[in-house]
């Protein structure tokens, strides 16, 4: 595609030089370093007392003081995507550079493709460097070299995370196309983020309570209630992502979530099968999640693409 490389280069240069990116990166790097450090210390303390398999992955999943890295990315990763994208189109429109760009011999979609791609590359670089820093720190602190399977799991986790943040980037670009003012699109992006991080979970339990109001008395409807919460909560990309990555990065998890409390007999039988899942099986468990995550990302980008292509130039 003609012009794609030119715009891509320029976007990347802009991003890397921007204060916004430096601040974001510093913040995320700091949090991940601290988390990994605390976990590393903790792992060292329990050395000898228990020898869990896949010690290395604990660096990513074990909450240090507050949250694990995986939780952190699930919660704040969206902010990175939103901040990278919320003014991508409307800033150019307000500064009058968009119509200049479009008056050059390039197709219109090259502009939006390049912007999205630049964001994705940036997110990839960011996550990769964080993961590498944690891995390095882990090697020093724990003194255990990760096995091939652990590396694969981390890599898959990385890919899923990039897709997940790319979804938020796509949403932010959509807002930057629809809203003329950068402040409005920033607010809209934030609103969507807040909605999905808090309200969907609350909404899900409220909905489940109304649909299964006799959950206290009837075990069947209690089960139904759990099922309902499980499905409604998946409307949130955050939940989708957490579930998808939890199983990939933690081989001891067999399903995406714990279901009903087990009876004593079941609990005993569960402990007999407490070995780790092989990688392929872990992925199989969350395949629907991964596919949905890719799907919503693609849909989000396709929507921005369509809106952008159909916009009348006069209003640019």
């Amino acid at each position, binding site marked *: 595609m*003609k*012009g794609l*490389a*030119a*715009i891509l*280069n*320029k976007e990347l240069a802009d991003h890397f*030089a921007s204060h916004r990116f430096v601040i974001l990166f510093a913040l995320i790097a700091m949090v991940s370093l601290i988390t990994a450090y605390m976990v590393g210390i903790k792992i060292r303390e329990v050395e000898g007392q228990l020898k869990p398999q896949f010690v290395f992955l604990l660096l990513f999943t074990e909450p240090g003081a507050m949250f694990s890295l995986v939780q952190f990315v699930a919660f704040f990763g969206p902010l990175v995507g939103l901040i990278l994208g919320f003014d991508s189109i409307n800033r*150019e429109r307000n*500064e*009058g*550079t*968009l*119509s*200049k*760009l*479009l*008056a*050059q*011999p*390039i*197709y219109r979609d090259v502009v939006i493709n390049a912007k999205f791609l630049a964001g994705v590359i940036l997110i990839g670089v960011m996550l990769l460097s964080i993961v590498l820093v944690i891995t390095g720190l882990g090697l020093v602190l724990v003194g255990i070299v990760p096995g091939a399977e652990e590396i694969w799991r981390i890599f898959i986790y990385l890919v899923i995370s990039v897709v997940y943040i790319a979804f938020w980037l796509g949403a932010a670009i959509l807002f930057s196309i629809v809203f003329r003012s950068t402040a409005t699109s920033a607010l809209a992006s934030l609103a969507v983020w807040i909605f999905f991080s808090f309200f969907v979970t609350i909404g899900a339990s409220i909905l489940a309570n109304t649909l299964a109001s006799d959950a206290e008395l009837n075990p069947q409807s209690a089960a139904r209630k759990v099922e309902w919460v499980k499905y409604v909560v998946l409307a949130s990309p955050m939940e989708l992502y957490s579930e998808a990555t939890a199983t990939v990065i933690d081989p001891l998890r067999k399903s995406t979530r714990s279901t009903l409390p087990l009876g004593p007999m079941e609990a005993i039988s569960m402990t007999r099968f407490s070995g780790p899942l092989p990688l392929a099986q872990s992925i199989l468990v969350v395949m629907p999640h991964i596919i949905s995550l890719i799907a919503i990302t693609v849909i989000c980008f396709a929507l921005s693409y369509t809106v952008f292509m159909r916009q*009348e*130039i*006069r209003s640019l």
Partner: protein
Amino acid sequence: MMPAPVVVTEDLTKIYRHQVAVDHLSFTVNEGEIFGFLGPNGAGKTTTLLMLLGLTEPTSGRARILDIDPAREPIKVKAKVGYLQENMGFYSDLTARQMLRFVADLNGIGRREAEARIDRALTEVGLADEDPPKKIAAFSRGMRQRLGIAELLIKDARVAFLDEPTLGLDPDATQRITDLIRRLAREQRMTILLSSHQLHQVQKICNRVGIMIRGRMVANGPIDQLAREKFGVDREEFTLEEIYMKYFLEG
């Protein structure tokens, strides 16, 4: 030898929702000509330029630029046409050279060729002697307009659409821009459509003017011819401003 027609429109029409912006517009601009494209705000001048660039589709009618249909092959047209819009935007944290390099990249011009063209263009518009190079954010309005013209030189445009190139410039800067425009037409045989409200300048540099009112072209021809048509006397006694007002009040 007759000069070749470069911009040709036939019954070009654009309707936005229920409003007619451009109404059966037909005109021709020949190679190397500077055509003054006049009219009150909202007369449809910018819409016409956008249609000629292939940035918006005509509702009906046809346009051809250098024998290419902008509605069908906008990319080809945009490779040969430069557009200097009103309130032109620049990436303000780039330098002039970086900006021109970006334009060269977008036009698919190779590295070495691009650098040679950039040197030539910067000298031509008088922006070469910046050391250390300033960012565009620090440029004056006149410098920005000259940078805009340098962009036309980089892509080696055969046709240029200039929308208010001298708006808000001081007399000296205005002089430089009008000189540049004249040189482009004379030396590079660039065909220029100049849309402006500064009729004094238009009168000085345009070979021919067209006056557009409410989407229609009500007058089209050399200034003295329009004067004769409206007042029955030669151009010397009437400025373009008076001719324009006469058309405007009748329209």
